[in-house]
Structures are given as structure tokens and as C-alpha cells.
């Protein structure tokens, strides 16, 4: 990051992807953004620009955002070619104007991936992630049926590693950063978080097989080990989890070929 401690205001040229709707053609449009405080966040800069556009009678730039503290995973801009911009381990909402120099041309695009179609301007449809979660990203624990919490002992290193994986905020930067638009880091984080815990063992094989299968179906690409995903991840989730998932997937595939599925509960008295 080219962080500077200067309090001098800066001006930049913003080159923004504008696209009216999912079926429309998009294009870059230039805007001048002037007299910006370096302490302003990147999204606040867009807020101010949008207000200026509104007053001028133009349509503001649609962009996704919510918590503005790097935890909800909503914001999703590719800034100067990097998902979430120039920072390391931060989301778009945690980028500040002090990362840019006076006179810079800053290119802003939506996260690009076949499985994340653009809805409008900088907003993409990431429901594919929810579909993957639906396929197996859970431990079945019906409300009210849980044993006492301390009856399940979990070694601290396992709990900590599961937590490392669980920090994923489901933003999709890993997909946008990958030249194959692979969702392997996301799925690996989910599979590892649950698979590392004793509670997650019962459904472990089914989970990894089903989530990976769904990921493939939804049009995400494969991993070719460039690890751009980890570099772009706002939570810096390690690509080691991908290796862990591949191991799980291999074992589950092997085991499932020896197992015959039960035809279901027979009931009866």
C-alpha cells in the first residue's frame, strides 16, 4: 500500500464500470473526484460522488456495501485489477483514500466470474455461494437436541485451526482473484471449518462430495495452484485448506465407492 501520512487533499480520476442491468452491455465511464481527504474511505468517496451525480441529475453508481467494517462480506469492488483493492487482508470498505496518490487514475470494476453475473454497475449476484452452502455447509443439529457443550472436548489446536477457516466472510474475492474463477478456497474453508471439529465427522464425507459437486455444477473453475485467492482474501485464509479439502475429497470418494447407501429408514414398530 502506498500509504502516506499526508493530510493534503487529493484528486483522482475514477474509471468505473457502468452496466444498467444483467442483460445490458457495460462500459467504463470516467469521473473526476476532487478534494478528497486521505482519511476518507473508498466507499465514502463513492458516496460523495453519488450525491454529486444525483444533484446533477445523473444516475448514481450502484455498489454493494453494508457493515463497512470488513466483516459482512457485502462490498466487492475490484480496484486497479485487485479484488478489494491495494490493501492486504482488508475488504473494499477498509480501503482509505490515503492508499492513492493525487492525480491517480483508479479503475473500479465488479468482481468478475462466470458464476457471479453482474446485476448492475458494481453489484454482482453471488447467490452461487449460498447454493454451495445449501448443499452441505452445515452440521445437522436440530434445535433442542444438543448435548451439553462441554461434553464435546476439542483440542485447542484443532479449534484454532477450525476458527482460522471459519473467518471466511463469503465475499467472493477468492473467485474474483482466480484466473479460473475457482471457488476452491471458499469451499475449502467451509469444509475444513466443519471437518476439523468432532461434531462435523458424521457428515464429513457427504459434505465434501456434495459441496464440491455443487461448486462444479455452478460454473466455478478448478484450482491450478496460483494462490491468488489467499493473497486477495480479506481474512488471509491459507491455501493450505485447499490441500486439506482435496485430501478429504479423495478419501470420501474412495470410501463412498465401498459403501452402499441405505435405502432410508424402514420405520415400523
Amino acid at each position, binding site marked *: 500500500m502506498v*500509504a502516506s501520512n499526508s493530510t493534503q487533499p487529493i484528486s483522482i480520476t475514477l474509471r468505473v464500470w457502468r452496466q444498467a442491468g444483467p442483460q445490458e452491455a457495460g462500459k467504463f465511464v470516467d469521473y473526476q473526484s476532487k478534494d478528497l*481527504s*486521505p*482519511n*476518507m*474511505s473508498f466507499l*465514502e*468517496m463513492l*458516496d*460523495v460522488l*453519488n*450525491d454529486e*451525480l*444525483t*444533484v446533477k*441529475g445523473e*444516475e*448514481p453508481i*450502484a455498489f*454493494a*456495501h453494508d*457493515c*463497512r467494517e470488513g*466483516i*459482512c*462480506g*457485502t462490498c466487492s469492488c475490484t480496484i486497479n485489477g485487485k479484488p478489494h483493492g491495494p*490493501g492486504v487482508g*482488508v475488504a473494499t470498505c477498509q480501503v*482509505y483514500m490515503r492508499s492513492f496518490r493525487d492525480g491517480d487514475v483508479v479503475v473500479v470494476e465488479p468482481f468478475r466470474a462466470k458464476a457471479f453475473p453482474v*446485476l448492475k454497475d458494481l*453489484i454482482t*449476484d*453471488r*447467490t452461487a*455461494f*449460498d447454493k454451495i*452452502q*445449501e448443499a452441505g*455447509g*452445515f452440521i*445437522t*443439529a*436440530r*434445535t*433442542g437436541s*444438543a*448435548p451439553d*457443550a*462441554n461434553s464435546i472436548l*476439542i483440542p485447542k489446536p484443532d*479449534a484454532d485451526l477450525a*476458527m482460522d477457516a471459519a*473467518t471466511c*466472510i*463469503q465475499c467472493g474475492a477468492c473467485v474474483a482473484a482466480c484466473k479460473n474463477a475457482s471457488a476452491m478456497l471458499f469451499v475449502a474453508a467451509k469444509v475444513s*471449518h*466443519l471437518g476439523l471439529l468432532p*461434531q*462435523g465427522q458424521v457428515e464429513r464425507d457427504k459434505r465434501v462430495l456434495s459441496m464440491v459437486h455443487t461448486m462444479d455444477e455452478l460454473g466455478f473453475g478448478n484450482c491450478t495452484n496460483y494462490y491468488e485467492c489467499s493473497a486477495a482474501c480479506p481474512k488471509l485464509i491459507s491455501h493450505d485448506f485447499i490441500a486439506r479439502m482435496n485430501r478429504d475429497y479423495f478419501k470420501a470418494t474412495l470410501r463412498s465407492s465401498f459403501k452402499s447407501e441405505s435405502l432410508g429408514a424402514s420405520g415400523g414398530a
Partner: protein
Amino acid sequence: MATLDSKVPSGPLADKWRKHKADIKLVNPANKRKYEVIVVGAGLAGASAASSLADLGYKVKSFVFHDSPRRAHSIAAQGGINGAKNYQNDGDSVHRLFYDTVKGGDYRSREANVHRLAEVSVNIIDQCVAQGVPFAREYGGLLSNRSFGGAQVSRTFYARGQTGQQLLVGAYSSLMRTVGAGTVGLHPQCEMLDLVIVGGQAKGIIVRNLVTGAIERYSADAVVLATGGYGNVFNLSTYARGSNTTAIWRAYRRGACFANPCYTQIHPTCIPVSGEYQSKLTLMSESLRNDGRIWVPKKAGDRLKDPNSIAEEDRDYYLERMYPAFGNLCPRDIASRAAKRVCDEGRGVGTSGLGVYLDFSDAIRRLGENGVRERYGNLFDIYHEITAESAYKVPMRIFPAVHYTMGGLWVDYNLMSNVPGLFVLGEANFSDHGANRLGASALMQGLADGYFVIPYTVGDYLASQKPGSRPSADGPEFKAAEENVLSMTRRFLENKGKEPVSHYHKRLGKIMWEFCGMTRTREGLTKALQLIPALREEFWANVRVPGSADTINQSLEQAGRVADFLELGELMCRDALTREESCGGHFRAEHQYPDGECKRDDEKFGHVAAWEFQGSDKEPLRNIEPLNYESVKMSVRNYK
């Protein structure tokens, strides 16, 4: 006038919930699938309610305005979740958690609800662990606990600095499991814009699909609102930008009473505003006050000087001076008000003058820079990221910010509002935190309501509704509600105003912060009650909402939310003006003890004020639910 029957069961406090569950009506399994329940919001309360109801066999429809249910703002809670497990063997119990919560709420919550909350807190921890929430562990594999404000035991469970996200991921994973099983229909990017009442009961909602712009009608046998708090009425807050009051406000306009709207919590340690463009305030954990010392210069003339150049004798460590016993660790509301006072005196630091120093130089001398880094490194990093300043070298600047709202829609013991069939959960209701919420209790309440209360009480209501009696969404009430939504949209888009929506939101926020913030006075509130209606009029005359209704239109979304805030703000001021006492987060300057503590008036105000809408141009009606404390004796809240 609305009937406010709290429906608190009779009998000893500790037996009420058990007895109530035994008395409650059940719906037989074959009938459950004939009922449809709408759940709006998918934070901790909404997601846990939707999946639990679906597992029982009801058909559930879940609506969120976010693109995924996992984005709800429960996700941002850092500290932890309370549970009366007594895993530390330090004498904790359900009764102690109950008592701490009632006292923390300054004796303005409903006793029976709080006791139930404490009872089910232990089940919540079990449920979350079973789902795979990676709580912090000790080396032996047991769960770890930490202590939190307002308690003398360690009962807070946590997952690094992101307990909220981990609990929400747990609830979300359950929700997605039920979505995958086909028992919950998920409607992301759909914002509820009206409540439909048929025959006096809540039977449906009108939503706007935020992607296509389509206005859609949905009918159901019951409606559950779990749509969070309304702190963004202040514009600047620690809430997510999208957090809003629209769902509960439109329900209020349809007859649901709004209880104690003036109860807001202001957190003392947030990063100050840096400019007019500011959109969001970031919380710095309260734990920093364990080692940081808070001060401002004694002389107003020093406020822009380099803090390190200000001599020790020219510094005013005002909390240590005013509250020698608790010092920098005095309760949230007291610390917040003291910061405001010194800034009002012109001694606030930073260019805006709205900030105080939180200084770690003593701690660094005592523990070394690495010692401080070990304890607070991640917080110092966040501070650096936002301000580009190193708190190891210069003191942090902090200022209070709006953080939570204790008020919300009125609900009875079953979490049902005064509109039959309308249930309200989590921060959106009013019942459990009284006039002030303790740390690590918001997550607890959201999950208690969703996992362990609503699955019983919705069934009790549905048992009184004939299966299959759900009205069709083609009925006249649905048509009228849809027309109401459409006419508002048309009005916005056809308005040929000049100013963007944010202009009015900012101005409203300033009025609310000045007159209905940390310290409230009769004079100020009276003034706000003139300023807000005038601002609202200006908003409707001069707001500009660009774009069209049939696509993503964030200006249109925001316009509707701000229109509601402009009405809610007035109600908050009215409530604050009428409540002639100080309690918890509601501080009326006229009602204080000489040491600046809240002076309650239990005789006149030991009640819930539940406001009832009477029409756009009429004053709302103030209904009262008396608070009867059977078990706890109301006393002066004292942490000294």
C-alpha cells in the same frame, strides 16, 4: 386504545417458563405443514427462528434485503455471548445472570422475560457448539470464558474478536440446511415495505424485490419480524449502513405499539468522526479501558497541540478525577456523558473538537510495547488502518457513538405484539434489556428468541387458527397495502427535488444526536419536536430520487428508510420528553443525582411506554404497561 396484556404466567418466577411450556397449545405434526410462517430478517434471531420452525414442520418463508442471509449485522458483534453455564465454578447461576441483566437494564425490563432469557442461555451454548461454532477453547479441550462489564463472574463465550460472525454462520448454516431440504423458501434481496392485516390479525407482507423492482405480495398464517434495531436514525452509528427501521415502523403504522423508543445505547469507545463525508463509526473494544487512561487538556487552548508535548500537570484525567473508585472503568453511559461534557467545555481534541485521548503511554512503560501489543494488537491495527496513526506513539482519539437500541415493538411474554399473529424478535422488540443493555447480551437474546422461545409460542398462536384458513394474497387488504407501497415509490420518483436522500439523513442525525443523544433536556427535546416535522416536510418537498422503480435503485431504497427515520425520530423525542426521569441510556439532565447518576422515578415511570399510531397528522397515544417486580427489589443502580 391498544390492550397491553403481558400474558406473564402466574407462579414463582423460576417456574413460569416451564409451566407455560406445559400449558401451551400444540399443533399436531400432520397439521404443522398446513401452516405458513413468514420470517423477515435473518440475523441471529431471524435465522434461528426460521430454521427451528422449519424443523418443527411448518412451511417457512425467509425474507432478507441482503444478497445473502449471512450478511445481517449480528455479524459485527465482537465480544461474546453470555451463558449461565458456571463452567468456571465461580458461583454463576441462572439467577445471577437474570439479576445482572435486570440491574444492568436499570429496572426497566420485564422480569419474567429476563428470567427466561437467563434460563435458555445455557441451551444456546449447547446448540451453537453442536452446530460447529468454533468457540475459544482451553488446552484441555473445554470451552473458555472471559468476563465482561456489569458482571462479577466469567460467563462470556467468545470466538476471537468475531463471536457475532461465528454465531451467525452457525444459524445461517442451519437456515441453509432447511433451505436445501425445501422446508424454508429463501427470498434474498426482498425488502418488506408493508404489513398486511386481515381481520385484525397479521397475515402477510408486501415486499419490493430489490433486483427486479417488482412489488410482491405474500400471505401467511403468522408473521415474524426479526429486523434489528433503529440506531441509524442518528445517521452515524456503529450499525451497518443498511440497518433500518422500515419493517417495524410500517408495522407500527399498521397498529403495532412501539415501546420505549427513546432507550438507546451509546458506546464510549469509538473512533471519532473525521469529516462531513463520514458514513460509519467503528467501535473499539471496551476492553481498552482496562489499560488506557482517558484525558483531555486542562486548557481549551491546548486542544490542537501535539498531545505528547502537553505536560502531565496540564492534562485532565477527568474520569479518574470525577469517579475515583471506578476511574476509567466506570459504566458505559457515565463514560460517554463525561466525554461529551469535556468536549462541550471546548476541550475536545482533534480537528472536530469531538474526541478525547485514550492514552497507553503508562501501560507501555509498565508492560512494554510488546506487552500492550499482545493484549490489544488487533485493535491498534484497526485504529491505524482507519486513522493512519500509531497508538503506540500518540494517544488514540475516541468518542462515543450510537451502538444499540433497547426500545422496539411491544411484545407480550410470547413475543407477540398487540397485533395478533405478529411476532417480534431480537433487537427489534423491547422486552429484555430495559433501559440499558449489558455487553454480550444482544447475541444471547437474539438466539434465545429464535431457537428457544418462538418455536413454542408461534405454535400456541397457530393452534388457534384453523389450518388452511390463511387468506389469499389477492384479497382487498393485500391490494390496499400494495397500493400504499406503490404510491410512496411514485411520489419519490416523481418528486422534482434538489437534494439527495443523504442530505436529510445527515441533518436528522445531527438533530437526534444533539437533542436526543447522551444528554436530553426538556428544552432541547421541545426544540427537536419542532425541527423534525419541519425537516420532514422539506424532505418530501425537496428530495431527489433518481432512476426508475424497475431495477436496482439504492437511492429509492434509502429514501424509504430515511422517510421512516424522519417519523421515528419524532416519536423518540416525544418519548424522551414524556419520560420525566433518567434511567440507563435515557439521561434527562433535569433528573440526576449530584454525582451525575441517573435519578429514576419508579413511582411515576416504573412502566413501559408503548406508543400507538393514530394517523399521520395526529399525536400518537401513549399506552402503559406497569412493570411488576415480583422477585427483584428496585434499587439505585450502583457500581461503585
